[in-house]
């Protein structure tokens, strides 16, 4: 009996490990391949597609001389940091793309927190009859696909001729996600505690700053992470608003680098995912706390 159990749990761990490996595979691939030399990357991944467009066949004959398969590899032939060196010291145009992403994301994340924390508190404490209806509007807007929300943003930006970055940043700051997340957390906050402070004569500002905020740290951290991940990966809004190739954020510029300058791709991609991975690691305890909490609330 015991033997069967250990055998079963062994199998279970093998399954889970395999799944984890498949999940991580693309990221591991990025990391290891960024240590290849430029020439190796090009020779491994060059995709000579033109010939197939000419042939325009469904089934490709692999015997053709100009045809070769992608030679994906997890270990470079020899390890070199040359691509990183090139990225940091030799290609300011790529660094600028990174900087574009930064100046797009950081104002949204900061603004979102500044707006959402008081609003969530107010939503929880207000005694207005219709506040749940108002909150439902927030939820509906939150669940809309980006393209649908883009239409109002687009019309507004056309009407008052907002510069492209502001046309993305301003609506991002007021996105209802933060209010929703933080209020879900506040619902579980002991209300007696807040009322006791109120009886003692504390103003709302004091309660918010000294009691609520320190206890909301986990959800604010998760909000920062989710918002940052969302806008760091911005595609939909950027392709509508940003017309100038120099102003593009990394998220869409990277696919152009993939096509035009393949050798730089892996190093850039790694550099690009560093901030979000660091943020994720920094918030990991909060995330596991928050996830179990959201589950309970819903």
């Amino acid at each position, binding site marked *: 009996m015991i033997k069967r159990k250990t055998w079963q749990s062994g199998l279970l761990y093998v399954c889970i490990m395999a799944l984890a490996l498949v999940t991580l595979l693309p990221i591991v691939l990025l990391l290891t391949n960024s240590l290849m030399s430029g020439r190796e990357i090009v020779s491994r991944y060059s995709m000579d597609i033109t010939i197939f467009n000419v042939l325009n066949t469904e089934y490709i004959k692999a015997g053709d001389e100009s045809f070769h398969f992608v030679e994906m590899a997890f270990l470079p032939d020899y390890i070199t940091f040359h691509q990183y060196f090139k990225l940091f010291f030799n290609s300011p145009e790529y660094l600028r793309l990174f900087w574009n992403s930064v100046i797009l994301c950081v104002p949204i994340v900061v603004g979102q927190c500044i707006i959402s924390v008081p609003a969530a508190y107010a939503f929880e404490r207000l*005694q207005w009859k219709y506040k749940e209806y108002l909150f439902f509007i927030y939820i509906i807007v939150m669940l809309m696909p980006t393209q649908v929300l883009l239409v109002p943003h687009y019309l507004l930006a056309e009407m008052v001729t907002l510069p492209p970055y502001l046309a993305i940043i301003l609506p991002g700051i007021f996105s209802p996600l933060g209010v929703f997340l933080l209020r879900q957390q506040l619902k579980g906050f002991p209300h007696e505690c807040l009322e006791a402070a109120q009886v003692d004569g504390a103003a709302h500002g004091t309660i918010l700053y000294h009691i609520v905020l320190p206890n909301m740290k986990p959800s604010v951290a998760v909000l920062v992470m989710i918002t940052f991940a969302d806008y760091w990966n911005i595609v939909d809004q950027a392709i509508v608003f940003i017309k100038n190739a120099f102003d593009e954020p990394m998220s869409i510029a990277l696919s152009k680098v993939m096509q035009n300058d393949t050798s730089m791709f892996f190093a850039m991609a790694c550099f690009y995912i560093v901030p979000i991975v660091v943020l994720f690691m920094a918030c990991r305890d909060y995330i596991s706390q928050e996830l179990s909490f959201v589950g309970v609330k819903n």
Partner: protein
Amino acid sequence: MNVTIRRRNKKKYREWVLWLLLLPSLMGMLIFYLLPFFLSMYYAMIDNVVSHRFVGLQNFIDTFHNLSFQQALKNTAFFILVGVPLNLICSFTIANLLKKVTKLKVFFGLIFLIPMIIPAGAVVFVWKSIFDVNGILNWVLYSVGLPMKNWLESEWVLGIVIIIFLWKNIGIGMILFWTGLNRIPKTYYEMARVEGGGAMGQLFHITLVYIMPTGFVAALLSIINSFKIFKEIFLLFGNYPSEWVYLLQHYMNNQFLAANAQKLSASAGIISAFIVSVLFFFFHSQRKLSEHFS
């Protein structure tokens, strides 16, 4: 007497402060979301921005008759109807596996969340080198001696998109199911075992019944995330993909490029009506379910 009046005044004052705290968010909502949305609904009902002639629902009807809109609707519906249930089934199964794991629980949970945060642009190259004409998949097929295919241009491409979708979204669904499973009291299972219920009976009469609310949340989240797959598809195929992956998001995106405010607003109206009805359906059936089981 005096005290109650003062308290009432104080309460009023405090409500006022709360409104002040809510005001920035409320104004932002109005200016950047709600008012422009009503403006777009107005645009959807006029014939063009010059004459401002009211045409009622004509733009909506035109949109429905548009062939590329129909194609986009068909592809999007297929993607959601296949992708979302698959995502739920996979994440539920893995959550059941993970439930039995005792060591390194949090570690595995975090690993499965990582695809969620990795930007589409960084991994799109990996998908390309797997599924492209000379990619790994064709290499495997060639080595085994099976016919190869230009997958990204074929009618199978939506299947590939579903695989990418699953890779990205199984994690979050799994975490939701996992927490949901842990909340089902163990005594239910013990009772079922005492009364002689088999593994299948336990699954259908306990697990699936009590996981239902979590399932609703996971399904909703999955539908919302299914619209975000546009990022990957856009980075893989650009503005004009083959007809097999032409989604509603592409249709809207091409209307943006054409700067056609009427068509744009009409299709936004249609999609938002769809989302709102899905939402109402979800909340309604969830309420019914919870009444049924409580």
